[in-house]
């Protein structure tokens, strides 16, 4: 019951928010929530640390932007096409990397993301260091104008909710169950007749599609796609967001994403110190509260419930 009340309150807040907060900031938060959830699917539920996750986000921004600017696609088609394209990239990356588990998966995905970075630096359609600029906010279904910040906000909100619902369904499906089992004991899962490698590849495909969608949304919000979007810096930030909020919890990485986006908005003026503070908090999370904010909160509630039941 409290859960539905909470969801209803969140829905009201999300609809009313753009009248109180700058819509661009809200849309940035939504994009990173979807992006962080896609990362959570891999590390939080499948135990796979993708150290170059920004490759899907950044490439998604370029492809979505290019489809709207040069391809003349309507916004929903551009988003859908980007999602499919990045899912395909995720599948290919999975084929290369999924055979090696754990720590090597992290190193390989990092190297592949660097490869994609250099590839896009050279590709003519990205305009190199300048980035893809003046990306239009194409009409929805070719008829509905979403060029204002407010109307685009509601579109991004709707798509983000759908994406997160999709993520929720994946995690709570039998497939998600197997993923968690692989994370906890891969040998056991294999002995039950599953092929962990295939599950990992599918997880990476789904996650990459979601991350690509987040990137395409970001391109429509800022109307620009740059190499920074797929830099290692962004890959590091997304890991930080997920860990701070709490890996393996539905809401954790999203809370982390919202916090970090708002924090960066305030800390931008401090320049170098912002990164140092981020590093210190990151380290503190790893050393002292690995469950993250939401994870620690859940553990606290569970402890209290156990005590009052006793």
């Amino acid at each position: 019951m409290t859960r539905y009340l909470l969801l209803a309150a969140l829905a009201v807040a999300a609809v009313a928010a753009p009248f109180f907060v700058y819509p661009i900031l809200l849309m940035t938060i939504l994009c990173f929530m979807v992006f962080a959830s896609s990362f959570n699917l891999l590390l939080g539920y499948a135990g796979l640390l993708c150290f170059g996750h920004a490759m899907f986000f950044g490439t998604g921004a370029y492809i979505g932007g290019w489809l709207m600017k040069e391809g003349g696609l309507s916004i929903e088609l551009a988003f859908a096409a980007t999602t499919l394209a990045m899912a395909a990239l995720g599948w290919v990356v999975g084929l290369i990397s999924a055979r090696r588990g754990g720590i090597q998966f992290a190193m390989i995905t990092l190297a592949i993301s660097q490869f994609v970075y250099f590839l896009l630096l050279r590709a003519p359609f990205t305009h190199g260091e300048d980035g893809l600029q003046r990306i239009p906010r194409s009409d929805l279904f070719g008829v509905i104008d979403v060029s204002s910040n407010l109307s685009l906000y509601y579109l991004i909100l709707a798509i983000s909710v759908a994406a997160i619902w999709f993520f929720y369904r994946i995690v709570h499906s039998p497939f998600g169950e197997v993923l968690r089992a692989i994370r906890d004991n891969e040998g056991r899962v294999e002995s039950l007749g599953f092929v962990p490698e295939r599950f990992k590849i599918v997880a990476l495909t789904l996650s990459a599609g979601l991350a690509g969608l987040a990137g395409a949304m970001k391109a429509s919000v800022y109307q620009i796609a740059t190499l920074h979007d797929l830099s290692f810096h962004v890959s590091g930030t997304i890991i930080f967001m997920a860990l701070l909020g709490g890996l393996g919890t539905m809401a954790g990485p999203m809370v982390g994403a919202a916090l970090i986006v708002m924090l960066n908005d305030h800390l931008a003026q401090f320049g170098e110190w912002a990164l140092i503070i981020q590093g210190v908090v990151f380290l503190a999370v790893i050393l002292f509260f690995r469950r993250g904010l939401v994870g620690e909160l859940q553990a606290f509630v569970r402890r209290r419930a156990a005590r009052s039941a006793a």
Partner: protein
Amino acid sequence: MFDHISMQLLLGQLLIGLINGSFYAMLSLGLAIIFGLIHVVNFAHGAQYMLGAFVALLLLNHLGIPYWGALFIAPVVVGAFGLLMEQTILKPLRHLDHLYSLLATFAAVLIIEGLMRLEFGSTGLPYASPLPGGVNLGFMFLPYYRGWVVVFSLAVCIATWLLIEKTKLGAYLRAANERPEIVESFGINVPRMMSLTYAFGVGLAGLGGVLAAPIYQVSPSMGSNLMIVIFAVVVIGGMGSILGAILTGYLIGIVEGLTKVFYPEASNLAIFVIMIVALILRPNGLFSSPESSR
């Protein structure tokens, strides 16, 4: 196509490739030792290499200690710093998934690089070559210092390999990696040995930094770009394979140099293409037996 000019270009790029390869080999060697013996993926390796270069620079500018002194002092200083890192942030994570120690060293990089940029700015600082001049070999000009780097780093790589594979100390280390409880029951302090192994690997990174200072500009970000290449080298060579790391380091440096001659646009990509091909053809690494990968 092998007229006089392109021959010069080819040999020049081969030399640059060999020098880059020397750094790849030394750094991936340290990374492989640390991973192979204590199972920490040391993402801070590039930052520790950068610290080595800065220690050399500060020793010269503030204490007047020349390059040859720094060659001994800087690795010790950086190694001690590594020991401090190991005691404070890696030790508490020793019994957890290796992903946490990787992320902890990654967070440490953010802090170290940020503080260094705050103090020294992000532009590169010059370090005068201790061996100015060079020799004309007829077909190309070889600066003395670059020749020294190639010879010295090769010597360090061979010495380290011999230390691990052929000495009693190395045997203890390898045994502690396989069965720590049994080695401990022989009265050997395994945790201390692991800490010192980390410090040794970090010291190697610091030594690499001193070697690099006169060739590349000394800057806070000099290690982070190298880091990703080193990761690729270690993946290609097979995780934890020390000989594999050394050979792959030189191989990648030379291949990179050759790509600059024949297809310059792809020189940044060459390493990663090799990594992907190697992963498809030899999923356990070029120099690693199937059972040694985990």
